[in-house]
């Protein structure tokens, strides 16, 4: 792991070799990186590349099955499903990335405090996290959005809160096992303050497992946000978002217009699947022993 030797060049080369070795042994990870790049590109450039305006209605062409003109068909008021699915990528990724970023930062700070100083802070944090985890997490997110108000920002906060315990616990454990390590004592003897030691010596060691957690968590955060908007929270109707598109399309599935719900659902699955594969791949790179 990272706290082994700081000897620069050869160590870095072997890390790179290790990454290449893992990628070659497991081409699935390479595919996952490709899928990830595709998602990022469609989030960045999708809105300017799609053939139709995602909000433009066209009553004459309502409920058309997939064709050359409309790859994924059209919905009940003639909007192009393909354009909407691609445009939605940006919103869905933004919600989940923002939520995961908040839980990463807050979880890291709380975990560092609890793991480094211990004592009361540790006890209180653990009680608090236990209480959050005592709720079924999706249900807690529903309650939070209902309490804070039905907006996209609150979806982000709710998703951040239910993900936070995983980060806080991980960081707490990683910090705790290193707080008396030799290199930490050396840094303290050299006159560094507690916060400096924590930030520059201890916390970086928690980053590799954190990256794995982030990747696995992103998939879950997308599922969660889409689930919330599926039951009518957060994103409001004309906006293109995968969860709400599946919810609207669900009304047409019993009469056979499958493309309304299936394509946004497939895209959602594709995104979650990408992050899960990526997480598993990163885990192989970071810690080959944890492979299951």
């Amino acid at each position, binding site marked *: 792991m990272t706290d082994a030797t700081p000897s620069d060049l050869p160590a870095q080369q072997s890390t790179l070799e290790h990454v290449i070795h893992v990628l070659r042994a497991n081409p699935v990870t390479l595919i996952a990186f490709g899928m990830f790049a595709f998602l990022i590109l469609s989030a960045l450039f999708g809105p300017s590349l799609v053939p139709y305006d995602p909000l433009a209605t066209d009553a004459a062409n309502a409920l058309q099955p997939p064709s050359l003109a409309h790859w994924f068909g059209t919905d009940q008021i003639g909007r192009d499903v393909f354009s909407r699915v691609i445009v939605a990528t940006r919103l869905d990724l933004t919600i989940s990335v923002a939520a995961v970023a908040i839980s990463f930062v807050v979880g890291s700070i709380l975990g560092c405090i609890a793991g480094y100083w211990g004592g009361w802070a540790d006890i209180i944090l653990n009680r608090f996290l*236990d209480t959050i985890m005592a709720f079924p997490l*999706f*249900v807690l997110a529903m309650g939070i959005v209902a309490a804070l108000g039905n907006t996209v920002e609150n979806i982000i906060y709710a998703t951040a809160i239910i993900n936070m315990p995983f980060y806080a616990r991980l960081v707490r454990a990683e910090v705790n096992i290193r707080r008396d390590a030799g290199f930490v004592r050396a840094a303290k003897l050299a006159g560094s303050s507690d916060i400096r030691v924590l930030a520059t010596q201890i916390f970086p060691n928690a980053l590799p497992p954190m990256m794995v957690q982030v990747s696995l968590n992103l998939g879950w955060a997308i599922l969660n946000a889409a*689930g919330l908007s*599926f*039951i009518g929270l957060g994103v409001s109707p004309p906006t293109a978002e995968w969860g709400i598109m599946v919810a609207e399309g669900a009304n047409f599935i019993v009469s056979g217009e499958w493309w309304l*719900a299936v394509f946004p*659902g497939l895209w959602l699955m594709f995104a979650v699947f990408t992050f*899960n594969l990526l997480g598993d791949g990163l885990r192989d790179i970071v810690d080959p022993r944890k492979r299951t």
Partner: protein
Amino acid sequence: MLTSYPRLRAILLRVAQAVPVVVGVVVISFLLTRALPGDPAVYFAGVAADEASIEETRVAMGLDKPLPVQFVRYVGDLLQGDLGQSLSSGRPVATDLASRLPASLELTLTALILAVVIAVPLGVLAATRPGTWVDHLCRVVVTAGVSLPTFFTGILLIYIFYYLLGIAPSPLGRLDFIYLSPDHVTGFYLIDAALMGDWETWRGAAKQLVLPAATLALFTLAPIARMTRAAMLTALSSDFIRTARAAGLSRRAVLYRYALRNALLPVVTTLGMVFSFALGANVLVEKVFAWPGIGSYAVEALVVSDYAAVQGFVLAMALLFVLLNLVVDLLYTAIDPRIGFDAK
């Protein structure tokens, strides 16, 4: 006296551990009901309320008093089973939840049993035959299972089995309207119909249950299969299995009597997380299949901003989750062969 009954002591200790969790859950749900932006009285009085009825609600709920006093009052109400009034149904939230809970429990428990029955053998087979098609199947199921949005799986299943193949009944609730619902004994239609000996209704209820339960099971079986496989691999590579093999025990005995029993312990502990997912996914599945449980009740309440109903639902789910975890841990305490020695 307790020291002579180590198992009883372990059980009492575990029950005592649930108390602070329940206290924390109650505190958080209290904060959620009071965290409404602006004036909570406005929200609880409903959309159509005027000045006078808002003021009335404020006094009736004690919202004019300081927070600690409100909290004591909230806990007092909870102890009497009072979760407030639902605006949309006009009945007490506790009554609404109690009448809809059996539907949710029937769905969730059927799905969990289905998931365990499929996932555990799948995990065991994958662990004992690494690299074969069973192992690959297990890996695909596990990765796909956690990537599948439950609400999407449900819709796909409806499309395939109801619209295309026409073998599933229409996805509208627990029982087709041609059947009368069975007499209320447990609230579980399958059990009630069986008690009445009405197998026609039983078959009707079972038909309605298959698709939603399968949807939920597909989602929950992935983590169980993954954990079983990992725990089984660890158990199979441990020393006591090597010893058992060296002692010439049959493959069957080694696998089931020694390896599986030990591998099941970590699986049981991950069930807590699985419950959390299952109860959350339950809400989505109920919405897709118009299942009249507490999940769809909360979704309907959310749409019309019926806050007392939503918060009552959140609290009820949390208490249910604590209870499920408690039951699983108690079972664990009861079956774990090592506890007797630990406590001595």
